[in-house]
């Protein structure tokens, strides 16, 4: 796999370290000459000094044939243009932009560029962790339109001891898997739920709260 990352700072450094340790071939593009020298010393990656939104520089970095382009500069307009050029000019299959302004995630998606906002991600993580300690995992999929949540049933849960079909769930919610004693079970209506079970729930953001309440009860 070959990935081009445009940007600098700690975000870039750790993303790059992560990807190279997984065996990716990483090419970094950075506008600051000094930082380029530092990055080249610290990371097993090819470093190119230049403007990542310049077609020539992207071409030099091998955008033609890259599997992914990641734009994490502090300027949203640069990130947008880098990803658009990568996709349109070089046919890179996955181009992802950092939206520093959280309002811009939606803007970028409308303009056809996959985007993420660290503000959003950290915010939702804190919210979920803080609201229910039984939630061990939360994964937004389908551009955030579907939530996959893992929860633990404890003795106070109103669902513990009931059969799945006895629990009234809001529409568009699904118990995908029950993990009992490390064994995954794909549940049917007749399956019972016990204290200590881990449930993997699939919900929509609008019914996420009510579904959690059905399994964990009312508490804050």
């Amino acid at each position, binding site marked *: 796999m070959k990935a081009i990352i445009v940007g600098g700072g700690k975000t870039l450094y750790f993303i790059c370290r992560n990807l190279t340790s997984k065996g990716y071939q990483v090419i970094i593009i950075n506008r600051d000459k000094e930082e380029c020298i530092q990055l080249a010393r610290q990371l097993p990656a090819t470093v190119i000094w230049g403007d990542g939104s310049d077609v020539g520089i992207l071409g030099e970095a091998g955008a033609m044939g890259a599997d992914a382009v990641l734009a994490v500069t502090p300027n949203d307009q*640069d990130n947008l243009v880098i990803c658009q050029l990568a996709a349109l000019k070089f046919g890179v299959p996955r181009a992802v932009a950092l939206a520093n*302004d959280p309002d811009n995630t939606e*803007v970028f998606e409308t*303009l056809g560029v996959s985007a993420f906002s660290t503000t959003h991600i950290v915010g939702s993580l804190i919210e979920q962790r803080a609201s229910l300690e039984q939630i061990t995992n939360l994964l937004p999929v389908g551009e955030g339109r579907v939530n996959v949540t893992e929860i633990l049933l404890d003795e106070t849960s109103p669902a513990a001891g009931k059969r799945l079909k006895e629990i009234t769930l809001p529409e568009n919610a699904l118990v995908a898997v029950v993990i009992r004693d490390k064994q995954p079970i794909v549940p049917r209506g007749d399956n019972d739920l016990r204290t200590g079970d881990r449930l993997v729930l699939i919900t929509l953001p609008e019914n996420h709260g009510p579904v959690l309440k059905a399994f964990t009860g009312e508490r804050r």
Partner: protein
Amino acid sequence: MTHNRYVVILGCGRLGSYLANRLSRDGNSVVVIDKDEATFRNLSPDFSGFRVIGDAGHMAVLKEAKLKKADVLIATTREDNVNLMVAQVGRKIFGVPQVLARVFDPKREEVYAQLEIDTICPTSVAADIFLRAIANDAAKMRGKSS
């Protein structure tokens, strides 16, 4: 150009302020956005439009300029990427009927033509004029020598 249109101009440098002064004088409602307040000095004393200070990369600033109501958006900052982003936001999110962006890099211009974003590239415009002038001079020289 018909009068009384609502024109939003991004960037109040030499080009932006020149356009703003002309369009305002012709009777249009003009809003100029620039993050540097000092650039508003470029506006002529009879400029009758509004000035917005802010970074056009932020949605809040574009909303403040009432981009939704605009008939025309012209992006003239010195940064190609700002112009390209704002042009797309104006066109596809605020639904501005006429959007023009200045883009210096001809290679970028070519890609954005595919996205139906109208750009004007001063580099290629100037190059064309130069090339034509050179060709004309060469023709004249040939005329003289024969």
